[in-house]
């Protein structure tokens, strides 16, 4: 098979899977109970694209391959092809999406087994993979946007999956609406690019980008970044992501940790040569990334819901990636996207496994007739799970170490590379990068601390649920622990794809060689000053500093939470007082938005616009007092007054229109 048909097959398979499971499930309710069949089909429709991705990866010969499926639209001088692009960047993203996606599909077979909406879940998941593949493989902004909207839609469907709980559907709506704001900026950027370049193909945009006016470039990059802040949950649009945890845990792992939320980074990396032409906006990107990172990290310290800790951690890590993008190290951002997919995927799946176990506890308590309301996601009622769920515990610990940057684990390399790039960029005379670097160091410390906190509170110490002496959870089935182990292994070794510059002068940094423009890849990077030979000492110091920071954070949390358990939070609250309250209340973002945006808009719609309605309702009540018997009573309606109001409005329109036309 040639590359074209392979690519098209890889994209079509998830769509076919979604269509089959969705439509057959919808129209033939009997099919819904064939859970093994549904799960296997769904998984295969992602696993085969992964295999295709591997095949393409092996065959890849350093030239971007473009597959034109068909011409989507052509109007006047505008054409948009359904074109797909296979190059280093899209291949890597495709492998992450389908690889992690396939693992999470397998996991879901076990996790969702008892859910009546099993078929729907797999249909949505496959649909998501389809949309995500369009996003990363598209050859022009329009196809990318198609995927971008598609993943947003799937995210909406999956967050609201357990829609019977009103809170969940509210979370889904919030995610959708906040994302639309980002989409709007993205659309504007597309309009501007199309207006000035006449095409949305990546080749044209990236080649013609330099010819644009600086102001245009700034606007385009700024708008693209706003689009990215929506999807990738950055200040000021991050508020939807923590709420999005209302969805099933595999969804949180796949969409809200590993893949969809990183699409903003993908967009910036894809547009990297354009972004580099807007240094002012880059400053903005880096600072927003840094602020998001530290803000989310501080919030994460105060959270007790295990999934919310991970959600804020995701926001924080995404902030790290934007820091990398903001200092022009796009390939490092993608590197972190990859390692983050491994360890955060594993963490979420691990938390899912824990929730699975705690559900069991809740269930048993109910059977015994206890009137306890146990929140299976609350870490305050966990503890000591290590004994009952060893596999979950070990994999969770591995990923915790990885995300914290424990030396030689994947997160160590990727995070250190980000901090190093920030340092290097600052060293080359870009002052803001120093700020980013300092914030990054602090955030790394916080990350190590709150992640170890979540591990200790969940898996160590005493069991804190009621009747813990008799009732305890069991380890999850192999279909769930299998993916956990796979991701844990990747979380350990994934970092070796990007060995730092101190080793063999960066020659072993595979990911840089694969993606970086200096080596013929598609991802451009900022130029930094040449270093003198002695700079390697600084590099070593920074590397060791990174390791030490992680160890300090991890060690401190390990000590205090093993010693005091959950009570240590009270100590923190007392020590930090107002600051802690601010963190615990998430910096009051939601309240602020509610006051500044939601209430006024709805108020406008209800209070100002509704009088029309009330007139009409009044008219109905007054006018319909007695029923029409003959033509004669028609006259009555002329006296309700409503018609005159309408006529006055029309007259107003006439005067306005004539005024504008004659005198305008």
């Amino acid at each position, binding site marked *: 098979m040639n590359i074209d048909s392979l690519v098209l097959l890889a994209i079509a398979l998830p769509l076919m899977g979604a269509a089959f499971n969705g439509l057959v499930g919808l129209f033939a309710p009997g099919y819904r109970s064939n859970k093994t069949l549904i799960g296997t089909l769904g998984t295969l429709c992602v696993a085969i694209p992964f295999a295709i991705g591997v095949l393409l990866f092996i065959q890849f010969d350093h030239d971007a391959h473009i597959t034109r499926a068909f011409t989507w639209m052509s109007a006047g001088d505008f054409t948009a092809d359904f074109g797909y692009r296979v190059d280093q960047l899209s291949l890597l993203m495709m492998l992450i999406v389908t690889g992690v996606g396939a693992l999470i599909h397998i996991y879901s077979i076990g996790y969702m087994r008892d859910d009546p909406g099993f078929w729907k879940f797999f249909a949505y998941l496959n649909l998501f993979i389809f949309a995500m593949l369009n996003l990363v493989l598209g050859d022009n902004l329009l196809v990318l946007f198609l995927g971008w909207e598609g993943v947003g839609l799937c995210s909406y469907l999956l967050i609201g999956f357990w829609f019977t709980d009103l809170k969940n559907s509210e979370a889904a709506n919030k995610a959708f609406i906040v994302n639309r704001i980002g989409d709007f900026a993205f659309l504007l950027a597309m309009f501007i690019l199309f207006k000035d370049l006449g095409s949305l193909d990546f080749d044209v945009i990236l080649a013609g980008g330099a010819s644009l006016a600086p102001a245009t470039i700034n606007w385009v990059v700024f708008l693209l970044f706003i689009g990215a802040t929506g999807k990738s949950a950055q200040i000021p649009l991050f508020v939807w992501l923590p709420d999005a945890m209302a969805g099933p845990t595999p969804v949180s792992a796949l969409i809200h940790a590993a893949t969809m939320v990183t699409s903003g980074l993908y967009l910036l990396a894809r547009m990297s040569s354009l972004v580099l032409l807007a240094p002012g906006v880059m400053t903005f990107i880096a600072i927003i990334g840094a602020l998001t990172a530290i803000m989310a990290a501080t919030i994460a310290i105060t959270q007790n819901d295990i999934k919310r800790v991970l959600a804020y951690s995701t926001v924080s890590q995404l902030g790290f990636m934007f820091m990398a993008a903001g200092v022009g190290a796009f390939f490092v951002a993608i590197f972190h996207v990859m390692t983050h997919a491994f360890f955060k995927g594993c963490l979420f799946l691990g938390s899912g496994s824990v929730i699975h176990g705690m559900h069991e506890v809740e269930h048993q308590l109910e059977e015994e007739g206890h009137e306890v309301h146990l929140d299976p996601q609350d870490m305050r009622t966990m503890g000591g799970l290590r004994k009952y769920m060893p596999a979950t515990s070990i994999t969770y610990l591995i990923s915790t170490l990885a995300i914290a940057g424990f030396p030689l684990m994947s997160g160590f390399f990727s995070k250190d590379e980000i901090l190093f790039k920030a340092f290097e960029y600052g060293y080359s005379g870009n002052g803001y990068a120093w700020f980013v670097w300092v914030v990054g160091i602090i955030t790394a410390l916080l990350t190590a601390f709150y992640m170890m906190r979540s591990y200790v509170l969940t898996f160590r110490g005493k069991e804190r649920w009621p009747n813990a002496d008799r009732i305890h959870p069991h380890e999850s089935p192999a279909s769930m622990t299998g993916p956990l182990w796979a991701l844990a292994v990747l979380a350990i070794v994934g970092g070796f794809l990007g060995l730092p510059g101190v080793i063999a002068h960066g020659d072993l940094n595979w990911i840089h060689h694969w993606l970086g423009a200096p080596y013929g890849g598609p991802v451009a990077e900022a130029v930094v000053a040449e270093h003198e030979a002695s700079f390697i000492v600084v590099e070593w110091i920074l590397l060791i500093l990174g390791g030490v920071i992680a160890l300090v954070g991890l060690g401190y949390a390990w000590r205090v939470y093993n010693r005091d358990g959950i009570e240590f939070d009270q100590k923190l609250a007392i020590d930090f007082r107002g600051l802690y309250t601010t963190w615990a209340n998430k910096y009051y973002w939601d309240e602020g938005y509610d006051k500044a945006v939601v209430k006024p808009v709805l108020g406008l719609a209800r209070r100002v616009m509704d009088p029309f309605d009330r007139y009409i309702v009044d008219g109905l009540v007054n006018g319909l007092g007695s029923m029409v018997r003959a033509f*004669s009573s028609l006259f009555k309606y002329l006296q309700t007054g409503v018609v005159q109001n309408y006529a*006055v409005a029309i*007259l*107003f329109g*006439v*005067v306005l229109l*004539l005024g504008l036309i*004659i005198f305008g």
Partner: protein
Amino acid sequence: MTPQFLFFCLAIVAITAALGMLIARSPVSSALWLILNLFCVAGLYLTMNAQFLAVVQVLVYAGAIMVLFLFVIMLLNVAALPSVRDIDWRLGVGFVLGVALLAQLSYAIASSTDLMPAEVSLESTVATGSVEVVAKELFTRFAMPLEMIGVLLLAATIGAVLLARRVSPK
């Protein structure tokens, strides 16, 4: 000068009659004012040598339609409206907007046309308003719209029947 003099006389009476129709509170006098207005317009047609139009105007509007109006008014025994006591906001806004519209249109027309055009000889206009000329245009050039007006009237008739026949509820 005669046509212009006639024009202004007729126009002033027509406008007065239109206002009278609006202001009158009794439906019958309102209808009578309207008849006066329609006659004045017919007179205006005559000054422009459009005899056919003038006759049709009187026959159809002042004759048939107004008689129907009066029938309906009498049959229904519509009482006179109470005299206007207070002016509500609608009236005020409507008045202001109406004056604004009038000003706009007056400006537009006054700025674009010659207000006192040179007199056109009667002979040249005679040819345009006769039955023969109107009929020829109507049945050649505008035959298709004429046929469609047939459809329009048919639809209106059906509609009237449809709306009126369900006198008793199910």
